[in-house]
């Protein structure tokens, strides 16, 4: 495939545009999409870029269909992806559930918006529950929560590779602010950076005859007996647990010598890290922990943090969706948990600093 980005370059663009470019660099073959704010421009840019690079686009009649057409693309061996938000993410969960069970590497970019509602299209972090565990299975999926445009680019590429390497549906979890905001970043060709590009291959219509040099392609999403289903699910869970240490990513700053650790993900983590730095400068012993993969969650790393500091402040633009993951990770350990929950609203570093100074008995 012809390289979409010839040489490394510094650019200034919106997050939606970054996702389209990231998908191009990740050698995505086709995007399937349906209009929903704030991800529309992923489609707009893709429809303009794709023909120039021999890639394809298909608009469907809803997100249910966008998800299943993505599965169709994947079955044919194409690096296929879709992008959506809010109510569209809900409809997407059925195809994702099927992809989990059939181990199909579909890739999705989610630009979170406030909800449940149709008009609040600007920003939120309220799709964490849905994106990490929205299906009717065991949530065997990979979710990368990005914070900057550079990460949107990096993790879009990574999402395609992780999906095709491990064969689990993979999400890039952004939000409306990241989608619509402009920010500088460096675009590069992943191969030049030594990124190993996981190969894609067809699931159906494979070359050759089965029995003569290859196994038959036997794909199932219907099990007649619960015992049979149990075996398949358990096998997937074992695979998932085995690869978890290779996938898990997080950022941990100054957690070793801290009286309080601020936990945040996505764009809110930028406010949190700024707050942590400022508080540190002022003499407060504050640490910062950010899960980059929300699924699988960096359980081991967070439990390690808890052994040195057992006080946490969870900050998120949702009502306890990240906190749920944190509590689950820390189950059985003794920990105190404070919170700043602001569903659908942006959170500034000043807000966090004020909260820490007012609420905690931490001394300078």
């Amino acid at each position: 495939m012809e390289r979409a980005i010839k040489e490394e370059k510094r650019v200034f663009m919106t997050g939606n545009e970054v996702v389209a470019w990231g998908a191009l660099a990740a050698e995505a073959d086709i995007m399937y999409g349906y209009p929903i704010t704030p991800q529309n421009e992923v489609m707009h840019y893709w429809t303009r870029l794709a023909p120039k690079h021999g890639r394809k686009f298909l608009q469907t009649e809803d997100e249910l269909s966008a998800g299943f057409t993505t599965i169709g693309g994947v079955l044919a061996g194409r690096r296929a992806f879709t992008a959506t938000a809010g109510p569209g993410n809900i409809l997407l969960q059925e195809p994702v559930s099927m992809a989990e069970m059939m181990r199909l590497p579909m890739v999705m970019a989610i630009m979170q918006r406030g909800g449940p509602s149709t008009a609040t299209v600007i920003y939120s972090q309220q799709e964490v529950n849905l994106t990490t565990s929205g299906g009717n299975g065991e949530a065997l999926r990979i979710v990368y929560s990005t914070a900057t445009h550079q990460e949107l680019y990096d993790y879009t590429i990574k999402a395609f590779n992780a999906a095709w390497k491990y064969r689990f549906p993979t999400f890039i979890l952004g939000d409306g602010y990241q989608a619509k905001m402009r920010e500088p970043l460096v675009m590069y060709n992943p191969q030049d950076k030594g990124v190993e590009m996981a190969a894609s291959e067809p699931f159906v219509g494979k070359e050759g005859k089965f029995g003569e040099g290859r196994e038959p392609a036997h794909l199932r999403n219907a099990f007649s007996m619960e015992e049979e289903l149990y075996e398949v699910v358990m096998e997937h869970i074992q695979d998932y647990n085995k690869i978890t240490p290779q996938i898990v990513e997080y950022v941990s700053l100054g957690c070793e010598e801290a009286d309080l650790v601020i936990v945040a993900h996505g764009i809110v983590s930028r406010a949190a890290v700024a707050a942590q730095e400022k508080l540190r400068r002022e003499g407060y012993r504050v640490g910062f922990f950010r899960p980059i993969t929300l699924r699988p969650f960096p359980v081991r790393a967070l439990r390690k943090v808890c052994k040195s500091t057992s006080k946490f402040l969870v900050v998120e633009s949702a009502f306890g969706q990240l906190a749920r993951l944190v509590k689950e990770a820390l189950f059985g350990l003794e920990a105190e948990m404070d919170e700043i929950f602001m569903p659908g609203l942006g959170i500034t570093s000043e807000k966090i600093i004020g909260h820490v100074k007012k609420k905690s008995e931490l001394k300078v």
Partner: protein
Amino acid sequence: MSDANVYAVKTLTSKEYFAPGHRACSGCGQAVAVRMVQKALGRNIVMASATGCMEVVSSPFPQSSWEVPWIHVAFENAAAVASGIEAGLKAQRRKGKIDGRKITVVAMAGDGGTADIGLQALSGALERGHDFLYVCYDNEAYMNTGVQRSSATPFGAVTTTSPAGRVNSGQLTWKKNMMRITAAHDIPYAATASPSHPLDLVEKVKKGMETEGPAYLHVLSPCPPGWGIAAEDSIQLARLAVETGIFPLYEIDKGKHRITMNLEKLVPVKQYLKKQGRFRRLSPEMMEEIQERVCKEWQELREKAEQIDPSAGADEALSKEQEGETEAAKIFRVKAGAPV
């Protein structure tokens, strides 16, 4: 008829049920249409609205343009919610909790909410036979989210997801025919209407209201920013769509087709297309293709409209049967146990 249309607004109630001050763009064809539809519907209605331009512009809380009971729920389910309201009202009436006066249940949605994501809910509601009126305001793309193509976008129109390039110039598929789809459900009434012909529009709304069972109204709604037209041209464009035969005004009343705005001669489609930014990249060949298709469809519609007496057709079929029975009919008779 067309002269009378100029004065049609005067025949309507002066009461506004779709209040001014909403946030529609200037020249919004849909806002004009909604205002007239609401005037025809009157006060005794309950409305369910799908997500779309009209929902966004008419209900920025705490303001509302709706002087009638109106609810917005989500994108795909206007017909489902209307079904629920209708069934609920029926139950209330049966229990004697509300009086017997007629309350019209209305569903409204755009072309995306009707022909794409809402088609399943609409089909279900039509099949179940709920007594309601469904109004589709067709602006021929997803205007609310930034002009993406829908299945109601006409051939050749440029949208953000069907851009014009070196190879393609806009939408590559033909507009989905919602009239044929809804009529195929054998509903008692389906009609097209345009804000350029208010008298006709109002008459159809009233007919739809009086119809027992589901009624479907497809209203063309020119969109200045989406179509690339001047705000003051939108009603003129709606009129041209009718006069070119691109959007013929007709109704299907209990299976009978009737053209309500007859055209002696079709205006060339070029006059309609060249006025719009979205068709700027149309090649002469594509223009030709559109003209041919419009003529063909107009002819088909006229043929359907002329077959007014269905029994005439039946006689013809009967004589054919006497001449030589078809294979299928023979098999059927054998299976039914009739003498061969």
